């Protein structure tokens, strides 16, 4: 099967174009470096495809499309660059995706592609934005200068995609002579001046906002406002979904179905205790019964899912609007104190949703040291949305000050540990150098598709593990393994953390899923102080199994063990300290 590779600078819309061509949903955002690996998909040429002489593809032919990470040059420097260059080796055709609003800089990579033997087609993407910016490009002229087909496209709306597929047939090698780096710059200037005309234009509102958000005296207050508003929105939407949608469904529709099932299974039978769990005062209690079908489903779907939806709604908007790189610039100073540069704020924010994609996103950072520090800090100090939803639900019920205590502790741990690692881990953190994208209002179609794919990913990952976790708990009790474990771990939990012996099980279950683990603290009748200790320890102690797997994959076993060791020690220290203070 023939291979078509999408190549271009970071943040020019390759992933959206990939989605348009293949229908495969990939996460695309408005900041450089969203795509860190590569994704494959397939495109089938229409049966009625005209096939002129020398056509590259037959009617109905199926080809593989590859979405490569964004790079500036084929003279590979970073790891992501090398990945892209390797993908290029096996390509039968390259679509050079170009940001029309920044033609000159983008041409550098295109020219390098045209010096190779592979057939090339240029997609002049973000075509719609050139108008607001006063940029006028003549695609025919550009085509003549480059010697390969040039097709204007607007990937987010689908404009120009049909034409692009048709003209893939005409793609051909550029036949440009191999140039030295210094020879390319004047060539780029010559091409741009022949096909692009800049009109004078007044700054739009979004451009003015863009400048204000990176100036210190306006940017920092704006950032505080954005983060507060985001936090408030996540809570408001999450609580509304729970109160008006999830709870009524569970109490009104689902409970009446479970009650006959409970009666039929007979309380006390093994199957009953696994599926329904214990009855509290003869009733099913979604928070305390602890069966697969009761607490298991309730925690995931009624307590956590609403927060997953609201968190990703807000985060996706900030991502697609283009705010995050600006936040990176503003917070660069702070992040350097913890051994990272500002761009690490992006994986950190992703971590507030789920630590798994967050650890993967640390690939946008340049060196091993930074990735190690970022991944460790995320796993210890950044609670995922599922865990946070449970903290709000359970700890929040005792009073907002206790929730604040958990967050404050985690933030201090993040800060102090980062500061220490910056001192102790060998190496240095490189300086920030990023392109700041234009602000864009996210088009609703792709926006909601991305939201949906994130929610589906959550459900696919969470539901099986939750079922497993609840099953494991019930078996632990049924087979009396609990007492053996309790004897073993009791000193740490009771003496150091000041928690009852029963808290051992939730802490162990935290290895599987932290939201279920916090849910298990509910029936233990802990004091508010004990609850703060237990949830904080759970948040820091070992990553959940999914994060554990991704840490191993991204860091290698040696660094993963180091990272886990740090978590273990810090969790015990902080848990004991909190126990003394509260």
């Amino acid at each position, binding site marked *: 099967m023939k291979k078509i590779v999408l190549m271009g600078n970071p943040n020019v819309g390759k992933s959206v174009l990939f989605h348009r061509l293949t229908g495969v949903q990939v996460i695309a955002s408005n900041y450089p470096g969203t795509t860190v690996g590569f994704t494959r998909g397939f495109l089938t040429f229409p049966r009625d495809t005209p096939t002129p002489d020398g056509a590259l593809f037959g009617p109905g032919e199926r080809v593989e499309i590859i979405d490569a990470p964004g790079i500036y040059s084929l003279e590979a420097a970073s790891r992501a660059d090398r990945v892209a260059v390797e993908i290029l080796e096996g390509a039968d055709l390259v679509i050079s995706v170009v940001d029309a609003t920044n033609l000159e800089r983008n041409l550098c990579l295109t020219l390098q592609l045209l010096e190779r033997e592979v057939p090339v087609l240029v997609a002049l993407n973000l075509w719609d934005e050139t108008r607001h910016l006063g940029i006028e490009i003549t695609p025919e002229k550009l085509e003549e200068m480059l010697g390969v087909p040039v097709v204007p496209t607007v990937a987010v709306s689908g404009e120009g995609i049909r034409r692009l597929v048709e003209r893939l047939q005409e793609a051909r090698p550029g036949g440009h002579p191999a140039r030295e780096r210094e020879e390319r710059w004047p060539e780029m200037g010559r091409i741009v001046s022949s096909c692009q005309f800049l009109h004078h234009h007044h700054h739009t509102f979004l451009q003015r906002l863009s400048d204000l958000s990176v100036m210190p005296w306006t940017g920092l207050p704006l950032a505080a406002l954005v983060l507060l508003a985001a936090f408030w929105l996540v809570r408001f939407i999450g609580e509304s979904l729970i109160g008006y949608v999830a709870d009524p469904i569970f109490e009104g529709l689902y409970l009446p179905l479970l009650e006959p099932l409970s009666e039929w299974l007979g309380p006390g039978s093994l199957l009953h205790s696994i599926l329904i769990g214990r009855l509290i005062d003869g009733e099913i209690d979604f928070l305390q019964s602890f069966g697969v079908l009761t607490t298991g489903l309730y925690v995931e779907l009624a307590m956590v899912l609403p927060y997953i939806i609201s968190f990703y709604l807000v985060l996706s908007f900030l991502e697609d609007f283009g705010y995050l790189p600006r936040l990176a610039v503003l917070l660069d100073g702070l992040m350097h104190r913890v051994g990272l540069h500002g761009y690490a704020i992006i994986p950190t924010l992703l971590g507030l949703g789920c630590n798994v994609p967050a650890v993967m996103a640390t690939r946008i950072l340049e060196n091993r040291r930074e990735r190690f520090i970022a991944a460790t800090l995320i796993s210890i100090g950044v609670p995922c949305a599922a865990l946070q939803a449970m903290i709000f639900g359970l700890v929040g019920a005792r009073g907002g000050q206790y929730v604040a205590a958990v967050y404050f502790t985690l933030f201090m741990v993040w800060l102090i540990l980062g500061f220490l690692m910056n001192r102790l881990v060998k190496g240095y953190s490189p300086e*920030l150098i990023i392109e700041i994208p234009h602000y864009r209002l996210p088009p609703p179609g792709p926006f909601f598709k991305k939201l949906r794919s994130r929610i589906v990913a959550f459900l696919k990952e969470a539901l099986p593990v939750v079922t497993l976790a609840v099953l494991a708990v019930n078996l632990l009790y049924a087979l009396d393994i609990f007492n053996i474990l309790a004897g073993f771990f009791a000193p740490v939990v009771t003496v150091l953390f000041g928690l009852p012996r029963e808290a051992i099980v939730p802490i162990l279950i935290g290895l599987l899923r932290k939201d279920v683990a916090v849910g298990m603290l509910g029936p233990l009748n802990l004091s508010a102080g004990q609850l703060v200790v237990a949830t904080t320890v759970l948040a820091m102690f070992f990553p959940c199994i999914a994060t554990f797997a991704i840490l191993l994959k991204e860091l290698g076993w040696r660094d993963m063990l180091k990272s886990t060791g740090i978590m273990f020690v810090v969790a015990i220290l902080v848990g004991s300290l909190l126990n003394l203070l509260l």
Partner: protein
Amino acid sequence: MKKSTDLASMAPGERGRITGLISGPGLVRRLEEIGLRVGQRVSKISGMPLRGPVVVQVGGTRVALGHGMAKKVIVETG
């Protein structure tokens, strides 16, 4: 009157033309790839306090770069 300065020392709002990149080949390559090349016109948007990053406009893009890197981009203003 023309004067020689660098991206870190320029005042926000000031414009100029890049005349030199004083650095090793690795950083020079990265600066050039992102659009900061000798001969390009730049205008400074802002600089964060405490030697924080500098934001400049070059061609159609805005680029943020660390204070140390910005020092290495020599600019002629006026």
